[in-house]
């Protein structure tokens, strides 16, 4: 399913602990246009709750979350 999502940018956040994943995504999302999608790959289990919280507060949309064995991939659409 995630193969269907067209992404405009990929952020490799593997190996980064709190608070870096949300700091990096908040900077990264500004580099795409509204409506475009950022793919963010993390290894921090905390990001499973942090990314949705970040998206809710900042008004962006997490289209899909793919949980692999060691990695979590978020597809985030910039809304505002």
């Amino acid at each position, binding site marked *: 399913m995630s193969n269907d999502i067209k992404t405009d940018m990929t952020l490799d956040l593997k190996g980064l*602990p709190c608070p870096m994943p*949300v700091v990096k995504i908040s900077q990264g999302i500004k580099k795409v246009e509204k409506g475009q999608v950022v793919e963010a790959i993390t290894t921090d289990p905390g990001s499973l709750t942090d990314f949705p919280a970040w998206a809710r*507060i*900042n008004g962006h949309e997490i289209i899909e979350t793919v949980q692999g064995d060691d990695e979590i991939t978020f597809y985030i659409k910039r809304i505002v």
Partner: protein
Amino acid sequence: MEELQKQIDELKAQMGGMDAKIASNKLSMIVFSGDLDKALAAFIIGTGAVAMGMEVVMFFTFWGTPILRAKDKKAKGKDPISQMFGAMLPKGGSKLKLSNMNMGGAGTAMMKSLMTKKNVASVEEMIEMAGELGVKIYVCEMSMDLMGFKPEEIIDYPGLTYCGVAKFLEEAVNSKVQLFI
């Protein structure tokens, strides 16, 4: 009718002052502690808050003040008591100790090596990142004076300002979140 107009006018006057009273999306934090763990927590929350779209102001006071000392700077002309404080208090983020399990420095050393291994940013790195993210830093003037610290031995941080309690309270009143660490 006249009564109604009066009420409307009163409401309008109240509404006019509303904007100033609504707390902005800001985090005001007092960093009172100079422990490694607490300083780290303060900067993690501070930088995380920027990611959450908040404006962040950090006030360093008392034992928190030495966190901002530059390890490679010196201040001249200190009296003996200030010199003693200077020698006994940590010289910057890299010299902080754990609040718990310090064990004569062994615990702190172990924690630091763990942090490196697990890719956790050091306090010094966090300070640098906070600067890049636009976190504002205010330093308590009275703490500086009490401990005999001089501005020339404090780190280069964008927009670092010395202030008193009124500045903190002005920020705190207008902040949705206030923390004391």
